[in-house]
């Protein structure tokens, strides 16, 4: 009997793994096959033309550029805010300080807050401050959204920071602040992975930018203009009843998927590569 159960469970486990693979393959295959046939050079190099939304020519360059603007700016901002936080958490605070515990908890919770709530919250703030849906709004909300990702994944690496290196730096007479160069060098792979993760999440998020960045057919030239984003390009065009417009949604989804796949593979590469010849 017990050997039968053993066999059965093994089969079930393998099946569930195959199911996971099945999902991955199905999603990737669907997006690529649908998207590839709709893909053309115009799609990624042209702005929407006059009759774009009834199936005439044009592309979604506006969405690509808008996404890049938002993601680029918020990634930079996010790095500037989260590196000091992680540094403070791990170097200035004692190992089992209450504040560190509460902060980690807060960031874990912030990480779990749905992006639609971020969007709604940021939108109220924007109304309060009198900012309209714009590039600036999108950058603010995405920055808030990715800071927890940055902090959590860098903190994971920084927690493992070897005590000896810190002691060696202190023995040379360094203040806590002056260890930052050593710390940043040591956790550089962690920072790289965290950045890739954050870019991935930032570029794919639709719910938060929906109200804060708005949507437009042109490329924004200032922070106060609305900006289109790739996920919203997919979303809006898919809800059109016209087949040609829907095709463009598939093409945009393909672009998005390819970007995310590249980021994910790069992330793997970084973690593998650096965990091998990292110090200790």
């Amino acid at each position, binding site marked *: 009997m017990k050997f039968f159960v053993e066999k059965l469970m093994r089969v079930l*486990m393998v099946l569930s793994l195959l199911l996971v693979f099945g999902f991955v393959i*199905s999603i990737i295959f669907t997006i690529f096959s649908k998207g590839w046939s709709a893909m053309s050079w115009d799609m990624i190099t042209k702005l929407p033309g006059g009759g774009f939304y009834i199936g005439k020519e044009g592309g979604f360059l506006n969405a690509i550029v808008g996404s890049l603007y938002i993601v680029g700016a918020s990634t930079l901002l996010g790095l500037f*805010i989260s590196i000091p936080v992680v540094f403070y958490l791990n170097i200035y605070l004692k190992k089992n300080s209450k504040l560190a515990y509460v*902060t980690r908890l807060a960031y*874990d919770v912030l990480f779990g*807050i749905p992006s639609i*709530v971020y969007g709604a919250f940021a939108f109220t703030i924007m109304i309060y401050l009198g900012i309209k849906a714009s590039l600036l709004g999108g950058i603010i909300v995405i920055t808030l959204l990715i800071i927890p990702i940055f902090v959590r994944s860098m903190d994971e690496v920084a927690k493992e920071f070897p005590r000896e290196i810190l002691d060696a730096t202190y023995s040379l007479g360094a*203040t806590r602040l002056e260890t930052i160069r050593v710390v940043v060098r040591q956790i550089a792979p962690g920072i790289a992975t965290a950045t890739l993760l954050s870019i991935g999440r930032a570029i*794919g998020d*639709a719910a938060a930018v929906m109200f804060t960045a708005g949507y437009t057919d042109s490329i924004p030239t200032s922070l106060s203009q609305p900006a289109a984003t790739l996920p919203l390009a997919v979303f809006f065009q898919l809800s059109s009843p016209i087949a040609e417009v829907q095709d463009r949604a598939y093409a945009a989804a393909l672009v998005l998927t390819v970007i995310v796949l590249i980021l994910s593979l790069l992330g793997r590469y970084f973690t593998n590569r650096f965990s091998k010849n990292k110090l200790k």
Partner: protein
Amino acid sequence: MGTNFRIIRDKSAGGLMFILLILSIALLIAMGIGLYWKAAPVFEGRALKELLFSANWKPLKGEFGFLPFVMGTLWVTGIAVLLALPVSLLAATFLTEYAKPFVKKYVFPALDILAALPSVVYGVWGTLIIVPWISEKLAPLFVEHSTGYSALAGGIVLGVMILPLLVSLFIELFSAVPNDLREASLGLGATKWQTTQKVVLKKTIPGMIAAVVLAISRAFGETIAVLMVCGNLAQVPHSLFDPVYPIPALIANNYGEMLSLPLYEAALMFAALILFVVVLLFNVASRMVLYRIEKKAS
């Protein structure tokens, strides 16, 4: 650079970083207060119970019963967790207890990809694959007619989305179980599955509950993918094949028009507040359990 100057710089940088840290915690509190403040008008003259459990949703008449949306969210989340739990549990068990290294080499990137795909891509996949499958293959077996845009479609898509989270949390839990325990059990003549079941799974039950709660809260707030496959009809669902209208979809769909009706805006903010509170409570509880487990393991 005098030593005094260095000390001052060390202290003042510390102060700045401390402020940054406090600000980020304050963001959480500010969110709660901000949402409550914006949602306050809808509480006037309406009891919380009425808001949550009434099925009357007539915004133009000022009637805001959230029952259809609450039920919609519960259905979709419930289905997602029910589907994802056994798959992720089995997969994680296999990966920690049975699998050879080369299997992991292929599975982890796959899970990475699942975790990284944007929800709008899941939405596209759902509308292209899951929805037609339900309306053409599955639904005819049970009901007369279904468009496929249903609670089940939302549940399946959401289930796939929370798979990587569950698997990685489970793997972390299982790997924390000391090997001595496994060896002791195997040494008594138990099969591998018996060992897994009696030792590994039993020992990690609190952690698994925490992981599931975490996954539930993730599923709760997922917006775009669910919005694209659920049908979005404000009614209390009666079967898996009925369209549903989860809370996040409600917010996303009605944002544009809400400004014209102040009370409507408050109602939507109330919806966001519900999400916020549920996610906050679930997250705090499960994270605290997981921290304790992590601490014990190290």
